[in-house]
């Protein structure tokens, strides 16, 4: 009995390895979202400190929009930020932000420091909406169509290639499709 006991660590490892393996099969940059082609969950987030308006479903209605989840604590978000600024300046699509798991004021400070690409920002300090959206890590970005349905999910940094190669064509396609 006690000899079998010694194999316990191995058993534990095998279980872990199995999960690692399963986790690997899913390319994290292409995690299919449960939400694809479904409506965004209902939400009504309060504004972050120093801002007057929060973010709710109503704000996104009637237009193709880009919803970006960020946090001031997240270095990749800082890396992604200039790209978001560029997208916002280009005016191709309105950019909305969800400030995820930030202490009060941190998101505001961050936006003041780096510039604010967002038309509106909602505060999600305990990650409620993030859980509903199935966020695995920041930054994460959703393309939402005119009817409020999620059409695409991008995990990780929006690089220039991602924007030019995937997001921008999709946004333009959605705008054309629905405009017609």
């Amino acid at each position, binding site marked *: 009995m006690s000899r079998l006991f010694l194999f316990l*660590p*191995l058993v534990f490892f095998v279980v872990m390895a199995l999960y690692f393996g399963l986790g690997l099969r899913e390319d994290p940059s292409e995690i299919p979202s449960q939400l694809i082609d479904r409506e965004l969950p209902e939400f009504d987030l309060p504004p972050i400190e120093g801002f007057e308006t929060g973010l709710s479903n109503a704000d996104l209605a009637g237009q193709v929009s880009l919803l970006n989840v960020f946090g001031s604590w997240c270095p990749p978000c800082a890396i992604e930020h200039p790209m978001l600024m560029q997208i916002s300046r280009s005016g191709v699509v309105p950019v909305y932000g969800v400030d995820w798991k930030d202490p009060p004021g941190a998101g505001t400070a961050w936006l003041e*420091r780096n510039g604010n690409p967002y038309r509106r920002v909602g505060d999600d300090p305990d990650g409620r909406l993030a859980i509903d959206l199935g966020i695995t890590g920041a930054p994460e970005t959703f393309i939402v169509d005119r009817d409020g349905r999620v059409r695409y999910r991008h995990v990780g940094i929006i690089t220039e290639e991602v924007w030019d190669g995937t997001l921008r064509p999709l946004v333009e396609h959605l705008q054309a499709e629905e405009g017609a």
Partner: protein
Amino acid sequence: MIAELGQFALILAFVVALTQSVMTVIGLRTGDAAVHGFARAGAIAQFLLVLTAFGCLTALFAMSDFSALVVAENSHTDKPFIYKLTGVWGNHEGSMLLWGLILTAYTAALAWTVKPVEARLISLTFSVQSLITAAFVAFLLFTSNPFARLWPAPANGQDLNPLLQDPGLASHPPMLYAGYVGFSITFSFAVAALIEGRVDARWARIVRPWALAAWSFLTVGIALGAAWAYYELGWGGWWAWDPVENASLMPWLAGTAFIHSLRVMEKRDTLKAWTILLALVTFSLSLAGTFLVRSGVLTSVHAFAVDPARGVFILAILIGVTGGSLALYGMRASLLRPTGVFSEVSRESTLLINNLFIGAACALVFFGTFYPLFVTTVSDETITVGAPFYNATFNPMMGLLLILVPISGMLAWKRGKLKPVLRKLMPALVAALAAGVIALWIADRTRIAGALGTGLAVWIGLGVLIDLAQRVKLFDIELKASFARAVRLPLGIWGMAVAHFGLAITVFAITGVSAWKQETSGFLMPGQSLDIGGYTVQLDDVRRLEGANYIAEEGQFAISRGQRELGDLVAERRFYPVRQMSTTESAIRTRATGDLYVTIGEPSPERGWPVHLYIYPFAMWLWVGSGVLTLGGVLSIADRGRRSLKARKTAPAKASRDKVGTDTGATA
């Protein structure tokens, strides 16, 4: 040409490592004594080859040779020279090459320093070590070749991520890797011991300096990472329970348990199977840490690149190393019989409790890190585990453990008495309670955690001092005699005392920084000011200036307290045009009682510059505390116990030599 030379050196290193590993095992089987010399020479050869490869990559970066893919993706001609060099490991391929370099450096260090004792065990260790090297070099060659060429070569590179252009980056990964990889030596020793089916106090004595060295490096590495986050990210956060931070904390916790149980094994020849298991687990967690960062299994802030092929390869290495060693453990650990017995109240038992607590804390971090992955795999839900989870579970667990620290150090081995120890520690207990009450009284009264942390720090710190005073019989005998006793105390005891004192400082600093921090912010035009914690911070002027590869906006602040002028601070916001990124260079006024932390943001034309002020009480002691902690580890390394290795050699060594038959020159 240089790139090809580097690649060739790597291929050779792979061949040498594989050959050495296999030949050593064959040699040991046939009883050929030449095998020991071969194992040592092979270890040094591997190191020189990987060093050559690393030198080649460094040369490519130094010369800004953009025909090399890694250089083109991560460097730029305008980058300051020092960051061209540190950029060598600021990317996936280069950092993995660094990993390999440190791995072979450890093996070579073992070859250089090894004493002619336990030759079989050590040759087996070399064999295991070489196998790990072979696997890692293969990983480099097949999935992350640092010497891949780019054709046509671009005129200039894409520059290194500015967040990484920092002295912190220059030193953080090498230290961290030196910690992770250092545990490969103790791992290989453990596997060798399992193969031999025999482990004893001598094994512990040989392994101890390696374990302590790795632990010390890991401590420094983690502290540097925290410092980098604190100074570079611009919001003073030093620990965020990010998966990758956890990945470095887990081996540290397991390694801490390991060095404690190693001591029990060395002194009392017991807890054998447990110690071996910890050696295996510690390195496995180090590997898992690498796996986490490189494979993208968990999306993390540190991931350089997400590449499933790499993940599969690392998983294969992990299965080979961890799975293989744990299987071996299951088959052979029952051979490792303890000889020492101990009662429920003894230093052994408290160290065992220490181990169980640290083990449980490590399991909590493991759970918190991997549970989200687990949930995603079995269902389509996604959850996150953050600071509240750790505050509610990890912190109390560690708190309970820390209460034991001074008691454990003062209990006798084998059979101890709790009462006299507690009586001696009475002053520490009283002081701790008083400190807690004072903390509640003068600081924020609602922060119970602040009082608890302060009390705990005082308890450990004073406990350590009382322990030392007991050992040198301070005030019981003449001061001179006490001093003489202090000088004669083994370095291991000093190491323990210093490390535990460093722990007390660190606990206090963590308490200060997290329980009593203050922050405020506002828009300022030059001439306007903000108040925080008694300080007045006035924005004097904002200037533009140009750095080597960035443009900066520099805010000059005048600090005062009441009527007293306390000098100027300069905070910067830098913009790196090549990567289109800004970073903040916060201005920090460091005093023993706390840091005043100032950042400046992107201006708005009508409202002025957004300025953020933070006060982090006792932040400086985080770095002092981890420094003292490390010093404790280093002191203990110096206590090689060499005298006792020689003194006690005769009896057990003869027995083992007779059994092994190849342990030449052990009695010299």
